[in-house]
């Protein structure tokens, strides 16, 4: 049962609750870094790592420090603080031990500091804990959800990088060139993800 729910959470985070295409979080890197496939993948991996780490830290802080003391209204500001610190730490560690990865990620790592998708993952997961679900939403579920959100981000970025590659060679009317056609394309990709609605519930019936 536990594994079943974990798979359901993972798939839901990628497909039905895709943070970029369904919840419209993290649009800035989605539009900014999806021009080239290489940088899109690099950015997505960085985002995934930070999402999982951030959830791993913020979830216990929320459950064991904020809620018992009635300070849950502080979650936004504290989470931003924690995420910013974490990104810095990841940057220092990468610089020391994997300089090649540090160089290829370049500017993307510090950019994640203010990425709302990361903040969204850490905060929205807390709503699920309090809301009534068919199963108990645990720390492990939150971590899997964060990992799935990162992979979902990767899927969205890679797909969109492909779409933009096609756009490069398309004959686009002058008034739509650049950002307008990119936004139109993003809207269509997002619309296509609407097709996944209810997909996970049907695939893995719970309860």
């Amino acid at each position, binding site marked *: 049962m536990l594994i079943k729910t974990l798979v359901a959470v993972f798939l839901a985070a990628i497909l039905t609750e895709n943070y970029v295409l369904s919840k419209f979080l993290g649009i800035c890197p989605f539009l900014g870094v999806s021009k080239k496939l290489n940088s899109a993948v690099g950015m997505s991996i960085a985002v995934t790592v930070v999402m999982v780490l951030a959830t791993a830290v913020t979830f216990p802080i929320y459950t064991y420090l904020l809620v018992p*003391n009635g300070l849950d209204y*502080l979650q936004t500001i*504290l989470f931003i603080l*924690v995420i910013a610190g974490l990104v810095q730490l990841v940057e220092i560690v990468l610089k020391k031990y994997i300089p090649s990865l540090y160089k290829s990620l370049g500017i993307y790592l510090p950019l994640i500091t203010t990425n709302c998708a990361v903040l969204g993952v850490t905060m929205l997961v807390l709503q699920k804990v309090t809301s009534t679900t068919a199963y108990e939403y645990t720390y492990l579920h939150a971590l899997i959800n964060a990992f799935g959100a990162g992979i979902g981000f990767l899927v969205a970025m890679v797909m969109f990088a492909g779409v933009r590659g096609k756009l490069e060679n398309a004959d686009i009317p002058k008034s739509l060139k650049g950002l307008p056609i990119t936004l139109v394309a993003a809207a269509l990709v997002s619309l296509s993800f609407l097709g996944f609605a209810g997909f996970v519930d049907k695939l893995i019936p719970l309860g």
Partner: protein
Amino acid sequence: MNSVLSSVLFATAVVAGIGLLIGLILSIASIVMAVPKNEKAEALLAVLPGANCGACGFSGCSGYAEALSKGEAKVGLCPVGGESCAKDCAAVLGVDAGETVRQTAVVRCTGSLSNTSDKAQYMGLQSCSAAARIGGGVTACTYGCLGLGDCEKACPYDAIHVYNGVAVVNSNNCKACSLCVKTCPRGIISLVPVKDAAINLCSNKDKGAAAKKACKTGCIGCRICEKTCPSKAIKVENNVAFIDPDKCIGCKECVTVCPQKSISYFDTALLKQ
């Protein structure tokens, strides 16, 4: 009142405490995992223009700065920064700058719409690299400029533009980064020193009759310029004349005798500065 105050204080303490903790962890981490910085390379990077064009042969300015700091590269390889940049780099490294000659890109083609024509109508992708792949290109001259502006898109300095079907370099803006040289699918753009010298603006390697048919200003390899040149600076190879800018004394004899008017004169007096 007291309980409100204490809850505010507690909240503040929690945020401040976590902030302090993170700060502490970060500062410890930055000391423990400090990476020794290459100070020389950073000083050099500040001097370099930051164009990241790769014309020096390294991966961008930081790559060149690192190679310079290790003594693996010479100063003055940066065509964008030119002489002043070479001097600054030399000052950082404490070596002699030597001499650098300013260069500019030149499109060796004058096949404008009035001089040559297309052998077919091209409706495909508006890109030279695509057009060049279809039946040797649509231009009557299989060596000439396609005029679809790949070089124009590649140029970060707004120095090359397509006028009347042929790309022309504005040497005032050109930084000789050679991005257009690499982009041109015909390979007709090259770097030349900025110097008063004659230059053959044709790349057609066809024999005389074919070259003449393709373009009004095509070099037919007649060798008249080669024979006329007093400084023996001109060599005709593969039916096209090449003028060595180092040997050219700027007498303009070749410009006058060229029956096709494919040789023109690079006049530095026409440049600004």
